[in-house]
């Protein structure tokens, strides 16, 4: 087909709703009889609850109930105990939001405090092995470090970060008899349904979760959090619909975070810049009641040829809330240490940082030994260097404009192309329209738009005739909208279902004596604009054959499963380049320009992919320069739990950024040639910026974020 929808820069199919206020987010639902719920949270980090005084709150006008007994619901932390600062301990319910907020503020929680440790650097915080990330070794890395000749051995820290999507987490729960409907903010409607059902001990089939729009999440709405379960629980208790919206402050302890990390990265190399050994020792904080590990160890093991690698990952359980995946989880953390170190190595051996990486690029996954489905890492590096004007980079401290020092830096990015089994239904209607649907979600990348494009091509219809549906747990099974797996997985399912239903209609036609396509070879039938035709035969519309068979529509539900990945390793690659200015006296770092070059297989929609990529760069700018969840470890409170003090980039921090994708489809990974992008596009960013800051100033900052006090 010549006019494929896939690959065109189509505007978002839901753009009109988004610019008119018509897109419905979870908190926008106000079913009749609604009660507003506000959580009361703990103000100590570890304690036993000895009593909760609700009399004052209950006496207030409009207050329907104050629930303190969470006995009827399974929560991840022990009942009656406080396991972290900000833990939900009661729910105030009232007719208006103002009444509920006030009621919650006068609930008094009595506790017997216990000694708490909330800092991973506390001497009483004991590191334990991660059950998910095993120790790893190949060769003898420690011997390689001794042998040298070039050895770099440094520590890196990354501050805790909160996702801070703009949408506040919200759950509206409504029971009708034993059936529960939940309008929720979630990256996984079916997972949330399952988890709420399990927590409340009701059949999974009785819970329906709806979430057509997500106001950003970045990982924070992946798992099901206590507030979601508690909203459903409260609604059952009071027999009224309940709306529970977390406050911005409550988000900091309520929906996870990127854990604070400590890394040692030691690297040995020859004078030719070839890496001979890597030692990576990594620690992240975790909740005591729940272990969360992330893939921060992967890239130092995987990305570059090094005969000797030793890697250990330890968790430090402390009295804090549970962490969770946040954009580029682990990878961006590990890449910061690895790519900063490579920059240092480049200077030590006096080899250009891009050339240094090219010398160490692996043609196969260094952990599994399998070749990559598509190996375009080196292409990303070369193309990026050329497009960015990397050759103009000067030695450290060599470029000055007035009060500003200017520097360039770069870093590599890589992320596994995660894929999961996924189902979708495709339906062709006799009126010439079509619907594709899957219980997936769209937190911003444009899932619905990409589904429409892939379906249009699979069905031989214009995109305008195809409607995509998602965000409802009653739709065909989908994995969590996370891990940048959505398009590869759901897209493949949509493609498979679309092709299947097209083939079904084609089959009907070629077997139908009344059809102009009768006895045509199905393999030669093409569909264009909903018209089927074959060489030597006439043509007819989908609708013609459906109507003759007395059908309004025909559909097919298909499940797509990824391969086992044993023969080849499916990976996304990229290279990030940054130019910064640093005020020579005031230490202010500003981004002047950035470019990311990526291999993500086929790009279904270049316009939306570009938005996603620059969004990743902006997220990385935040991580590099601004973001840090500040805590007072005397009692474990998060002190900057608001958007004025937890700083994320604003308009003024972000110049025009460039992102580019290498041509090509990775059909060895998915039938549609697509790989993921969402995580990849943040991964090298903090390192590229830190390297640029070094190039500008000669100061190496190994602790994120790089704030001005580190450069004065």
């Amino acid at each position, binding site marked *: 087909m010549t006019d494929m929808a896939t690959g065109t820069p189509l*505007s978002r199919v839901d753009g009109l709703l988004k610019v008119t206020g018509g897109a419905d987010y979870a908190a926008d639902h*106000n079913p009749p009889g609604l009660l507003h719920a506000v959580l009361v949270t703990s*103000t100590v980090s570890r304690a036993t609850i000895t009593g909760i005084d609700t009399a004052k709150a209950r006496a207030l006008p409009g207050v329907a109930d104050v629930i303190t007994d969470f006995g009827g619901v399974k929560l991840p932390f022990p009942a009656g105990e406080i396991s972290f600062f900000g833990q939900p301990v009661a729910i105030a319910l009232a007719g208006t939001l*103002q009444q509920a907020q006030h009621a919650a503020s006068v609930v008094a929680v009595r506790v017997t405090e216990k000694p708490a440790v909330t800092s991973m650097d506390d001497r009483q915080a004991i590191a334990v092995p991660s059950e998910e990330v095993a120790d790893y070794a190949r060769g003898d890395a420690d011997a390689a470090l001794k042998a040298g000749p070039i050895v770099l051995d440094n520590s890196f820290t990354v501050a805790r970060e909160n996702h801070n999507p703009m949408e506040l987490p919200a759950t509206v729960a409504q029971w009708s008899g034993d059936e529960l409907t939940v309008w929720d903010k979630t990256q996984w409607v079916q997972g949330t349904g399952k988890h709420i059902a399990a927590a409340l001990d009701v059949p999974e089939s009785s819970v329906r979760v709806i979430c057509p729009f997500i106001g950003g999440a970045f990982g924070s709405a992946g798992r099901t959090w206590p507030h979601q379960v508690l909203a459903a629980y409260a609604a059952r208790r009071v027999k009224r619909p309940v709306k529970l*919206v977390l406050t911005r402050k409550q988000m900091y302890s309520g929906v996870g975070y990127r854990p604070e990390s400590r890394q040692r990265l030691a690297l040995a190399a020859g004078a030719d810049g070839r890496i001979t050994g890597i030692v990576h020792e990594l620690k992240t904080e975790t909740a005591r009641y729940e272990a969360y590990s992330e893939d921060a160890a992967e890239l130092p093991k995987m990305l570059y040829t090094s005969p000797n690698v030793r890697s250990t990952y330890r968790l430090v359980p402390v009295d804090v809330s549970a962490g969770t995946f946040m954009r580029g989880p682990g990878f961006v953390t590990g890449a910061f240490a690895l790519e900063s170190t490579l920059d240092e190595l480049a200077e030590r051996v006096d080899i250009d940082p891009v050339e240094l990486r090219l010398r160490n690029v692996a043609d196969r996954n260094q952990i599994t030994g399998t070749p990559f489905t598509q190996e375009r890492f080196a292409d990303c590096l070369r193309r990026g260097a050329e497009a960015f004007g990397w050759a103009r980079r000067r030695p450290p401290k060599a470029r000055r404009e007035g009060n500003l020092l200017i520097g360039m830096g770069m870093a590599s990015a890589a992320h596994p192309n995660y894929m999961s089994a996924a189902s979708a239904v495709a339906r062709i209607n006799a009126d010439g329209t079509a619907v594709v649907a899957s219980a997936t979600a769209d937190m911003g990348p444009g899932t619905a738009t990409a589904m429409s494009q892939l379906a249009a091509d699979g069905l031989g219809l214009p995109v305008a005739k195809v409607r995509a549906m998602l965000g409802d747990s009653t739709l065909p099974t989908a994995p969590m909208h996370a891990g940048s797996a959505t398009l590869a997985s759901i897209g493949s399912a949509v493609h498979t279902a679309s092709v299947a239903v097209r083939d079904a209609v084609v089959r009907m036609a070629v077997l139908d004596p009344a059809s102009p396509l009768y006895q045509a070879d199905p393999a030669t039938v093409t569909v264009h604009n909903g018209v089927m035709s074959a060489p030597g035969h006439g043509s007819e519309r989908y609708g013609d054959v459906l109507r003759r068979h007395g059908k309004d529509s025909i559909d097919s539900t298909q499940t797509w499963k990824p391969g086992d990945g044993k023969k080849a390793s499916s990976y996304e690659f990229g290279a990030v380049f940054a130019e910064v200015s640093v005020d020579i006296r005031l230490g202010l770092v500003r981004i002047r320009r950035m470019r990311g070059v990526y291999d993500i297989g086929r790009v279904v929609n270049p316009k939306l992919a570009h938005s996603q990529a620059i969004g990743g760069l902006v997220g990385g700018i935040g991580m590099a320069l601004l973001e840090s969840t500040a805590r007072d470890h005397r009692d474990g409170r998060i002190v900057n739990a608001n958007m004025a003090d937890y700083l994320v980039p604003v308009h003024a921090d972000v*110049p025009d950024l460039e992102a580019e994708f290498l041509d090509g489809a990775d059909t060895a990974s998915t039938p549609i040639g697509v790989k993921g992008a969402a995580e990849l596009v943040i991964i090298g960013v903090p390192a590229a910026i830190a390297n640029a800051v070094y190039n500008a100033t000669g100061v190496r900052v190994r602790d994120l974020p790089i704030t001005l006090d580190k450069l004065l």
Partner: protein
Amino acid sequence: MAQGTPESDRSLTLTRRQFVGAVTTTAGLATTGGSASATEDGVPVSLTVNGKHHAVVVDARTSLLDLLREDLQLTGTHKGCDQGACGACTVLLDGRRINSCLTLAVMHDGAELTTIEGLAEGGELHPLQRAFIDTDAFQCGYCTAGQIMSGVGCIREGHCGSGTEIREWMSGNICRCGAYQNIVAAVQQAAKES
């Protein structure tokens, strides 16, 4: 503080500190000639939203944002922080952009409000709405209503001379999806048209 110390019962200090001044005064209207209204009984407010007149009785604590979202069911304006720190709640009040979360509804008797739902005229999108779609000035769409209303204000104020100027004058609207450069392009495009 707690670390290494024996278990202690801090409950009293905690709760007492929390409740200093908790006593509520709603009685005793001032004899000043001002109009006074107690919170719980509700305060009448009438205002025009998107050209439509509304007369409601609200709890005096209600923010303009909550009035729109919870009472008038105009949910296109979003809450991102409720602290004036994100811009998601931006609306035009008597033609000027403001954060609707930090003002009380009862202070706006007689006011004229425009929200995202009222920007299109006669089924025609506002040029900035069209520009947002063209330039893909969003991902998740949650900050979008605030960005667009703020952008309309920014254009009216005449702060669209350059990309740098737009960036500074739009900095009260956070986009965590990072659509900034596309938003700037959209504002620039719409500013040219108007």
